[in-house]
């Protein structure tokens, strides 16, 4: 007999079926933000940056506490910490841990220290803001005195592991100072882990330099803009052989230092826009594991030089998406190849570890993630802010290693002001944007283009470009299981 009376209490031994049905409002919302993916679908992100796509009706039902517990949407929302019920009581604690992990790098600043060892360069790239066609070593080379001070600053960083990157101009034109910095930093580093990389066009690489690099485990980063004609057009030098030098240099570096010791970066000029497949093919031909499709900085010489007119966000997005589609196609054919900008964003989507990419950080990565010591001792919080200074805008000049202390540099209002003002949590539109976790503040870009560390986001090229990429990546994952698995691999390479 299923419903037996229990005497005085007047209660049934078994509760009615209705009792066991979950009441629709017995869940609480956890903090989340959402954006429109299209007219039907919304993408939701929680405090830890995990995302979920649901339709408009499901979102309304969810917010109005009318979502059925058995529905797929409910199960997914609970699994990804968008709601809490009696089956998911640890959700808040998990979010706390993920959030804390994500911001842990803030106390581990500054990881990347760029030393501009000379402004001299034998190339004359029209979009380059900084290099000088000069033999005047005294005027444009970093001295030992400046290098010494910059090493002190670098080793003073709270970060346990730092990377020193040698830049120019063409840094190999002042190789003795590179050797000096490596020797001195190694001698003074104590228990800090210091790694080194030279950003070079490879035109001047030779056996003796490579021997030294091997001995000191120095990595090489170079430039490769695509096929020979495109690369040489972008990067003029005497002999018109920049491509040939780069390719033979890559080969030499690999022979001496190993296949993985050289990486390449590209610059997208207007001439690159309709050649993305050829550019990727060139990277494949050079046995690169991936490519970083990155736009030209839209300020400085890039705007001023007529032959390199800047391009708009729509043209860039078309280029980028065509490139990514081609890379997906290659992977579907069994050719493992990666796009690094997407991989950086995907790492933010799928892990709690921030990749520390300066442009995609909030608080802004300037000074926190990277710092640059110019040849003359002047310190800037990013490479782009150095470029701005070369064009006459010294808003981000933090001081000089010869005359200012570490505290004066890092507590300078020229650094703290933009970081504070541009913090996305308190910026109009960013503070409610579902993609805020994947994006960055980039006050240098916004100052350079809009003369404002924050700018109106609907008018910001940075915002429009990144919003488009975030939506594209999510759309592709939602529509193709292969792409989802591929992108998850890119985002979690160590999983």
């Amino acid at each position, binding site marked *: 007999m299923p419903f037996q009376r229990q005497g005085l209490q007047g209660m049934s031994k078994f509760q009615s079926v209705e009792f066991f049905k979950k009441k629709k409002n017995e869940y609480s919302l956890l*903090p989340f933000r959402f954006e429109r993916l299209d007219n039907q679908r919304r993408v939701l992100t929680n405090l830890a940056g995990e995302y979920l796509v649901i339709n408009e009706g499901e979102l309304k039902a969810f917010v109005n506490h009318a979502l059925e517990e058995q529905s797929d949407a409910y199960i997914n929302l609970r699994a990804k910490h968008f709601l809490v019920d009696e089956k998911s009581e640890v959700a808040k604690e998990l979010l706390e841990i993920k959030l804390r992990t994500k911001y842990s790098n803030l106390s581990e600043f500054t990881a990347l220290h760029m030393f501009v060892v000379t402004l001299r360069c034998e190339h004359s790239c029209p979009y380059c803001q900084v290099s000088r066609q000069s033999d005047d070593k005294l005027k444009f080379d970093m001295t030992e005195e400046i290098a010494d001070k910059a090493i002190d600053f670098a080793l003073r960083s709270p970060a346990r592991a730092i990377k020193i990157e040698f830049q120019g101009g063409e840094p190999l034109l002042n190789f003795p100072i590179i050797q000096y910095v490596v020797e001195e930093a190694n001698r003074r580093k104590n228990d800090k882990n210091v790694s080194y990389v030279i950003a070079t066009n490879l035109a001047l690489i030779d056996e003796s330099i490579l021997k030294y690099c091997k001995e000191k485990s120095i990595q090489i980063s170079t430039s490769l803009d695509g096929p020979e004609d495109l690369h040489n057009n972008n990067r003029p030098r005497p002999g018109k052989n920049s491509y040939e030098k780069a390719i033979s240099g890559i080969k030499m570096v690999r022979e001496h230092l190993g296949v993985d010791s050289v990486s390449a970066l590209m610059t997208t000029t207007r001439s690159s826009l309709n050649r993305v497949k050829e550019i990727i093919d060139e990277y494949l031909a050079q046995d690169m594991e991936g490519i970083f499709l990155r736009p030209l900085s839209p300020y400085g010489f890039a705007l001023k030089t007529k032959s390199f007119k800047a391009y708009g966000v729509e043209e860039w997005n078309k280029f980028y998406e065509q490139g990514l589609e081609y890379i997906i196609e290659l992977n579907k054919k069994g050719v493992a190849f990666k796009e690094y900008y997407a991989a950086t964003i995907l790492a933010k989507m799928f892990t709690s570890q921030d990749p520390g990419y300066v442009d995609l950080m909030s608080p802004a990565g300037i000074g926190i993630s990277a710092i640059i010591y110019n040849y003359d001792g002047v310190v800037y919080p990013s490479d782009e802010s150095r470029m701005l200074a070369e064009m006459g805008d010294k808003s981000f000049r933090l001081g000089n290693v010869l005359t200012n202390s570490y505290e004066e540099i890092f507590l300078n209002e020229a650094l703290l002001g933009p970081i504070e003002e541009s913090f996305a949590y308190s910026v109009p*539109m960013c503070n409610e944007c579902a993609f805020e976790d994947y994006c960055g503040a980039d006050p240098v870009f916004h100052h350079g283009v809009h003369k404002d560390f924050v700018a109106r986001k609907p008018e910001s090229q940075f915002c429009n470009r990144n919003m488009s990429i975030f939506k594209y990546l999510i759309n592709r994952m939602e529509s193709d299981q292969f792409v989802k698995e591929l992108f998850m691999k890119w985002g979690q390479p160590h999983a």
Partner: protein
Amino acid sequence: MKSRLLFDENVYSIEALKKASYRNIANYSVVIKKEGAQLECLFSFPVKTSDEKVLEYLDDFKREVLDQDLREIIKRETEGVRNLILSHAFSKTGLTGDE
């Protein structure tokens, strides 16, 4: 070119209208006025905007207002737990003021 939309104050907040307007600032400007229980949005579009585009923008604006309305509900309901999570997350990082 100008257009007008009316919203019932009992249903929509001025805040939602302001946020929806800001999001579209690159395409048009909006002046919001209160007329009795009605909230009036007066849109000004750049001269070159086609009639078709204006209709598209207005439809999009209405959808955005609804989204903003939902965001307000979510924010109200989750504000307490959001602050709790943030304070716990940063309580041992040396980044909060009272340490």
